[in-house]
């Protein structure tokens, strides 16, 4: 009886050791589109991905599209805003209320405008239980970003003049041309 008990106790231990000695289980690959984890990169375009899980397929697609587009808008707004803030700082008008307003209005409006040219170029839909997981990839071509920013800055020129910046508006226009490097 004693031997039987020892034998029975040894079985789970042996099984545990066998399990440890075995090959490591392969890491389970996530069922996520490659372009979601590693969005494409281009010199003249920016890409952002979005995803959403919803019971309705149509709603999942809408939400994923909206998130991808929002990510593009935020990237553009941040880039334009940073560029304008740096420029205002250098010209000595960085903290003026008018300078802050000019920077905010221009960057927000540019982000809004660029969305008109923003396209959803890839989508994938996965079924997870009774829900749909939608993935969307948004693309924005940077070719029109400089023109959009120049046009918007010109519209808000009055605000710029009120900021009493030491540098002329032509200097700002030159700085805007550097936005070409935004996707690099």
């Amino acid at each position, binding site marked *: 009886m004693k031997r039987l008990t020892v034998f029975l106790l040894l079985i789970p231990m042996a099984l545990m050791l066998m399990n440890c000695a075995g090959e490591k289980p392969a890491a389970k690959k996530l069922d996520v589109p490659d372009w979601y984890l590693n969005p494409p990169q281009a010199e003249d375009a920016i890409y952002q991905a979005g995803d*959403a899980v919803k019971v309705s397929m149509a709603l999942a*697609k*809408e939400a994923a599209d909206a998130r991808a587009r*929002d990510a593009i808008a935020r990237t553009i707004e941040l880039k334009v805003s940073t560029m304008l803030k740096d420029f205002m700082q250098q010209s000595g008008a960085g903290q003026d209320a008018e300078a802050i307003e000019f920077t905010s209005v221009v960057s927000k409006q540019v982000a809004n405008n660029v969305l008109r040219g923003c396209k*959803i170029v*890839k*989508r*994938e839909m996965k079924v997870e239980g009774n829900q749909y997981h939608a993935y969307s990839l948004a693309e924005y071509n940077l070719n029109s970003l400089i023109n959009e920013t120049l046009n918007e800055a010109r519209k808000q020129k009055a605000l710029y003049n009120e900021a009493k910046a030491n540098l002329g508006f032509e200097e700002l226009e030159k700085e805007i041309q550097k936005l070409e490097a935004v996707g690099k």
Partner: protein
Amino acid sequence: MNSSPISLMTKLLAVHLLIPVLLLAQKQFPAWFAQLPEAREGQVLIVGYAGRYTKLPKAHDAAVSNALKTLCQYYQMQLKFDLIELSDGRMQITNPIFEKSINTSLIDQFAVNISVLDSLPTEEGYFVLISYPPSGKKFEHSNPKSDWGPKPDWIDDLPRQKGYVFGVGQVARYAHWLRGWRDADDYARFDLAKSLQLETESIRAEKRDNRMTKTTILKRQSIDFVLKKANIVARWYDQATDTYYSLCRAPRQ
């Protein structure tokens, strides 16, 4: 092995519920419903579809009426879309609103100026292909198809064609094929409009204490747009997942 009475009842109920869905599923369709033929210059080709009627002439009229409404939409439709999403880390509420307005006053004028190029009655419905203005050319009659073929590329990668924009609509698990296509077609139109014009607002608020950061995001995207010359050019149905896909095309405006 005997089933318990409850599981047997569940199975019977499932079969009972499935029968109407299977009856309302779409089994046949004309080739031009899945892929619209290219129109000649100055010609517009539009597909119309209707459900099952006991009398064929009524089904024909309903399909032509549907095609005429789509023709009105082709020339001009006002699309309003508003999506508000609130997320605070714990929950996400997405509330989209879709509104479509069509000027149907032109229907009577169109009705006398079209020709039905082809029509196909099937077991589940009636399909017509119309031409505006009327076409004198003979159109090759389409036999009913029942195989949708492999998944087209445009579902995952939007087509790129110079001078045109595209939009994809997709819906799933509809009890009736008619509603499935109607909604997939409309979602494709909205999708296209969103790539032409979109207004966005986004508010992010971050609240930090010693241990954690709570982010609240309020996002809004909207369109109020008149879409012109948008047409559904391709459709695909995925039988495995009961999903309807529509591809809409319009010239860049």
